[in-house]
Structure formats: C-alpha cells, structure tokens
C-alpha cells in the first residue's frame, strides 16, 4: 500500500510539474518548476533503490544542464518574451492528437505482461550497494555501449566548438 502511495505521489506531482513547465509564460519560472521536477524524478529513482542514478540526476541535470538553460534564459529579452503567446494557433489539434495517442498507449499498456525480473533484484543491489552493482555491469556486460557513449559525448564537445567557437566571416 505505502509503496503505491509513494509512487502515486511522485507520478502525479511529476505530471503536474511538467504541465507547469510548459505552460508558464516566464521562462525563468519554467526552469524553476523543472528543477523541482528533476528532484521528483530523483526521488522516483531513490524509490527504485537506484541511489547512484538519483544523485547523478541531481548533479548532471539539476546542477549542470538546467543551470545552462537558466543561463540562456537569463540572456533573453524577457519583456518581449512575456508578450509572446505561449502556444501556436494549432494547439487544439495537437491536443487532440496527443490525447488520442495517450488513450492508445493506455489501452495497449493494459495488456502489458511484465517479463521475469533479471539478476539484479532489489536485495542483490542492496547487498553490494547500487554504485558497485552499476559499475560492475557497466564495465562488463555493457562495456560496448559504454564505450560508444564516450564517443557520442566527444561529438557533443566537437559540435559545441565547431558551432560556437569558430569565428567565421561571411563571403559577402
């Protein structure tokens, strides 16, 4: 009962916060709701005994990525920004499509038959702590994707340098 209540709280709050993020006119306020949203997501991870992921969620998303968002938002001209309509004219159509998609997904999910759990049960993770369990599996079973991810991150760095740092003059 209590775990369900716990999950229910997080699920409802995450949805409400997401709505607040997209509906606020002031982008700074949106970012702040998003910060709270990230904390709730971290809470959800804790609830799943994934303490390492929860901490990383806060450090990386709340601590670095969202601060950069904020940085960009702060440089906007907020007086103009506040006058712009929050949604473009076609939002009712988008809403209808989204809601029908939602109904479709909910309908399909009802037939979800969960697969048998793998080796990493809650007890197994607790026994060796989440960080150790995650580290071991990342560097053994998932070594290959892990290495690819490092290349993906390198591309992101190159991209930032190429697109932002290069001083280019137009031929004209």
């Amino acid at each position, binding site marked *: 009962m209590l775990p369900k209540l716990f999950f229910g709280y997080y699920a409802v709050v995450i949805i409400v916060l997401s709505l607040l993020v997209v509906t606020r006119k002031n982008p700074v306020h949106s970012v702040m709701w998003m910060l709270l949203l990230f904390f709730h997501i971290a809470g959800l991870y804790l609830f799943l005994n994934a303490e390492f992921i929860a901490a990383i969620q806060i450090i990386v998303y709340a601590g670095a990525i969202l*601060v950069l968002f904020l940085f960009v938002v702060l440089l906007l001209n907020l007086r103009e920004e506040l006058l712009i309509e929050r949604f473009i004219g076609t939002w009712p159509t988008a809403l209808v499509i989204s809601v029908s998609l939602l109904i479709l997904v909910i309908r399909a999910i009802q037939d979800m038959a969960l697969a048998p759990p793998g080796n990493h049960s809650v007890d197994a993770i607790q026994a060796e702590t989440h*960080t150790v369990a995650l580290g071991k599996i990342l560097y053994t079973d998932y070594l290959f994707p892990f290495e690819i991810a490092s290349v993906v991150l390198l591309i992101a760095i190159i991209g930032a340098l190429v697109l932002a740092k290069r001083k280019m003059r137009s031929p004209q």
Partner: protein
Amino acid sequence: MNTILETIIAPGSIDFALAIGIILVKIAVVIAIALLHVAYATYFERKVIAHMQVRLGPREVGPYGLFQPFADGIKLFFKEDIIPAKADKPLFYLSPVIFFIAALTSLAVLPFFDGFVIADLNIGLLFLLAMSSLGAYGIILSGWSSNSKFSFLGGLRAASQVISYEIAMGLSLVGVMIMAGSLNLSDIVRAQHAYPTGVFVIPQFLGFFVFVVAAFAETNRLPFDLPEAESELVAGYFTEYSGFRFALFFLGEYTGMLIMSSLLALCFLGGWTIPRFITDFIPFLSAVPGIVWFLMKVYAFMFFYYWVRATLPRYRYDQLMAIGWKLLIPLALINILITGLVKAWIKGLL
C-alpha cells in the same frame, strides 16, 4: 534509502518513533553547532585578517570583541527588509532560502567523528556535490530576480564559475573514490586509516591541489571572488539584499566554507583519525577524541582561507576560466588516470 522506506512501511513501532527522535535531535545539535561555528568563523576572519594587516579587529563588544557575531546578528535581524520595486518577488524571496538550505543540507552527510553522522549515505560524496550544485541556483536567481545590473553580472559570473569548477572538483575527488572504493564518507575515512600513509593527501597530492583551488572558486572566495567583487560590482549577486535575507547569504557562504573544509578533512586528511604511524610513535594521542582532530583539520583549512584572502589579489575573469578548464580539469584527469593505473597494478590486473 531503503531502510528509511522500510521503516515508513512498517510504522507504529516504538523503534520508529525513537529513530525519528534521535535523528531530529542530531539534526538540531548539528545545525546549532554548525551555525555557532559559522558565527565565530566570521569573527576569526576579521581578527585574523586584522592582525595580518597590523590592525586589531573587533574589540568593542564583549572581551576581545567576542560577542561581535551576536551583535551583528541582532543588527541584521532588525534591519529594514528592502525589496527592489521591479524585482521578481517570488524568486527574490526564494533564492537566499535555496542557497542557505543547500548549504545546511550538506551537513547531513558529514561524519564529524566515528559513527556521528545524521545520514550515513552510501553516496555521501555525490550528495555533497549535488547540494553544492544546487547552491548555484540561489546565486543565479538572486542575481536575476533583483533586477539590478550589478546583481545580474554577479549572478552570471557565479553561474559560469560554479559550473566550471564543479567539474574540476568532482574529478579531483574521483582519485579518492578509486582509492577508497566507496562513496560513503565514513568509509573513505576508514579506508584512509587503513592505508599506510594514513591520509590520502600524500598519494593524492594532485587531486588535493585541484580540490583546494576548486574549493576557493566554489565558495566564491578570494582570489576567485569575482561574483561579488566589491570594487567592480558593489556586492555582486546579493547587492540588493538587506537585513535578514542578506544574513542568509552570509551564513550560507560561511557554511559552504565550513563544508568545503570538512570535505577536505574527510577526503584527504583522514577526517577524525590520525595516521597510525603517529599513534604508534606517541600512543597517548589515540585517546584524544576524534572530533578534536577533525575540528583541527577543518580550522587549519579555514585559516588558510583567511590567509589567502589577506594575501592574494583577485584574478581576472578570463584567467579564472583558463585555470579551471585548461589547468585544473586536465590535472584532475591525469590524476584519475594515474590512480586508476596504480590501483589496477596493485590488484594485479595489469
């Protein structure tokens, strides 16, 4: 984590109430003592710097000016609370609170001596990093919501500075994590005690150096105090704050220094322990309570903070960024590489 959840799932027992009670008492004690330390840290700073500059420092309130922090507190408490007319009020109210809470929450995972820690998290070190990154929000938002040029510039400077140095600081601690094989701060201290040198500062001298420099930048202290550079930006991000809101920033900053010093003591200097070769040599030192050693280490570093403030001028902003990205981060990465290789070699994996 799970233990907390399990206790909540099966409440009603006396143990549950007792556990919560003990935690609450611990929290109260830690906060009270930490704030007292913070109050006197300001006093010591004024005294230390005064003597370095051949002055006397506060002397009027109480003997040797010892009650000065209380006088300051009372003064700030009763000052008028001024809010700029065009400020974004909710965020203006919120940001000092975020800043202060982030600093205070970090205290929860610090083991002051063996067994005395409010929450003995497996990921204590990551929790500290997470909280220190959260503190950046208080700074940035206060700068923006004040609707003042000085505040805004300070906020922007703080944002980029904190983000940049957070990376260096996190990476500098990775060497410690590798050596201790844990993210739990108590385990890190125990691992140091079991290690031949007794402290990690000797094998981790590179990480130590990076950490110390990054700690100055993270707490916005001289020589990296550009976010509040008084000669350029009045007071930076908290220019528009007065009264008790200003006090929250002030307290938060000094709590941040205290936490950085504690982290340094725990991760590099052996926390509440002293190296075994010292206790083997002078056995009666092992009878000294751990908290004494811990506080000595913390205050030694606090003194270093003041010393640097009294000695060094402020860096230029581009120099600050260059140090962070081009010196500290590569150094920290080299440190990780070396530490990892040595550990693999010791374990016979190479």
